[in-house]
């Protein structure tokens, strides 16, 4: 595994050790002996081909799946000893697609960020309403506050989910392919806004250039294992992309980005056969 000294020196908000998970029947193991840390304030990207286990790993971290072995420590406490509400006070989640909200408005969805912090008999206070208002204004959603969530575009929906996440005031934000279905403008806009929050983030990302530009650290998954870990410029090499994604790319330095951010250029047609041949051999 590729190391990264700066990354390893920070305090960790989340530590995963030897985590393994199989589907309920136990016949098919999806995650194998996963270990990694997320330092406080780091933006960690999870990349890998479809079916690598990225979403399954994330579901283990926000309580939907229950791993058969391994430990997850959140700020020094065993995550699996926290109840759902305690977990939600620390971890916020933005999913890639949103099921029907059956009539809920932008305000209602954003206000759901208060749920983990409010008792059943606690009403929204004036301060809560002011916080929701300022968050919606900050994300340019205030004019849409009375609109039905389902009537929004994909980019607007993700901004509402980001507003909800901000109101949830988490220590860690988990995002499962948040830029899927978004056009270039909204992809960059969303990632910049997340980055501006300044909290620890674990995001699975399909677009390698987005991952390279926004992540401090990348975890590469394939076949349920983490096969590489490190800063984008050490992880995103032509060989790794070819091995993991079976895609032929050229990697150079991004002309507009600092810190030797890698830029990936895809060879769309000419090299495909060559790669296939390489894979077979």
């Amino acid at each position, binding site marked *: 595994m590729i190391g990264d000294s700066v990354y390893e020196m920070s305090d960790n908000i989340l530590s995963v050790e030897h985590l393994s998970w199989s589907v*309920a029947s136990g016949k098919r193991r999806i995650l194998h002996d996963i270990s990694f840390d997320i330092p406080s304030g780091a933006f960690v990207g999870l990349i890998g081909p479809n079916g690598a286990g990225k979403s399954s790993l994330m*579901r283990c971290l*926000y*309580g*939907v799946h229950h791993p058969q072995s391994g430990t997850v420590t959140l700020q020094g406490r065993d995550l699996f000893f926290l*109840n*759902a*509400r*305690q*977990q*939600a*006070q620390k*971890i*916020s*989640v933005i*999913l890639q697609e*949103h*099921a*029907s*909200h*059956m*009539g*809920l*408005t932008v305000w*209602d*969805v954003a206000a*759901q*960020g*208060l*749920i*983990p912090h*409010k008792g*059943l*008999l606690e009403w929204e206070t004036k301060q809560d309403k002011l916080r929701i208002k300022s968050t919606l204004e900050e994300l340019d959603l205030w004019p849409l506050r*009375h609109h*039905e969530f389902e009537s929004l575009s994909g980019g607007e929906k993700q901004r509402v989910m980001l507003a909800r996440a901000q109101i*949830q005031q988490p220590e860690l934000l988990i995002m499962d392919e948040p830029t899927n279905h978004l056009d270039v403008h909204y992809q960059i806009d969303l990632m910049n806004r997340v980055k501006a929050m300044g909290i620890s983030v674990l995001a699975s990302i399909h677009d390698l250039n987005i991952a390279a530009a926004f992540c401090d650290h990348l975890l590469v998954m394939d076949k349920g294992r983490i096969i590489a870990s490190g800063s984008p410029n050490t992880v995103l090499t032509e060989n790794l992309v070819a091995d993991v994604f079976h895609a032929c790319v050229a990697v150079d330095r991004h002309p507009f980005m600092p810190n030797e951010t890698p830029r990936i250029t895809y060879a769309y047609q000419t090299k495909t056969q060559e790669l296939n041949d390489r894979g077979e051999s």
Partner: protein
Amino acid sequence: MKSWPLWCLLILAFITPLWASVVGVANISIHDALTIVCGSLGGGCEVDALKQRIWIELRLPRIVLAFLTGAGLALAGKVLQTVTRNPLADPYLFGISSGATFGAVLVIAVLGGQVSWGISAQIGLTGGAFLGSALSVMIVLLLAGRRVQIERMVLAGVATSFMFSSATSLVLYASDPQAASSLLFWSLGSFARATWGQMLLPLVILMVCFLVFLVYTRPLNAMLAGDENARSLGVEVHKLRISMLLLTSLLTAILVANTGGIGFVGLMIPHIVRRLFLQNQKHLMWVTPVFGGVFMVWVDVIARGLIDGHELPIGVITAALGSVFFIVVMGRRAWSH
């Protein structure tokens, strides 16, 4: 946020019972009704004693029971649609109403049709209805699998509903004519036998359920966007879903035991309310039952007034309105995509 729809509803909720109480064969005016109300509040009452009796002992309990039934069924439908994320869910879809009807019908059959509204008969009917609906919920949950998948729940609910309907028909077929006549009451629904004595249990259960649902509004709304979404907000999804299913089955059972099978209200009202009160989402937990109650009182007025000298069963009117509504909703969905 526009608040005028809420005010309109509240005014309607005030006017409707008053208006409904003066519709009927006996000639009682709104002035008479208000005079009786004032009289019972301490002032002298100049209205004829017979009219007073008709108004207080026949019309008012009927209106109150209609309101409670409409409110309860609408609330049950709203909660079921929320916890199953299925906009077409109602107590019928999950076999809750069919189970309750079967339980009540079985009790009537055992009693041989001798249902007087004594306290023991009411407990027997309510108990039978609740056992039937609870059994139905158990079967649906068992068939829904360990992860309580919504799609499986709907299919299991449909199967369970048919199973209990079939069992009800069998009991009806095997019963003596007197019991069979009483059983018709359950299959068609009516408020004609409403008395003040039978009001307490539905009122208490409705208030308890309403308060529980109100307290759980936020977690329930979180479930609208899916189990993963709700879990990530700290909601114990499975526990909440099962609790809500059991509570709605209790509420439905109490109402079925008192009024018989009244369909489509739980399906229609939450839909209409969602559309009419789009900007008042956080108020829907109280708006839905109030709207359902008002609606049911009007349905009862129609049932009493549509054909002179003849009263139509409530279930016939709600089913007619509901089926048209269902067709319109499905039609709009089919052509809007």
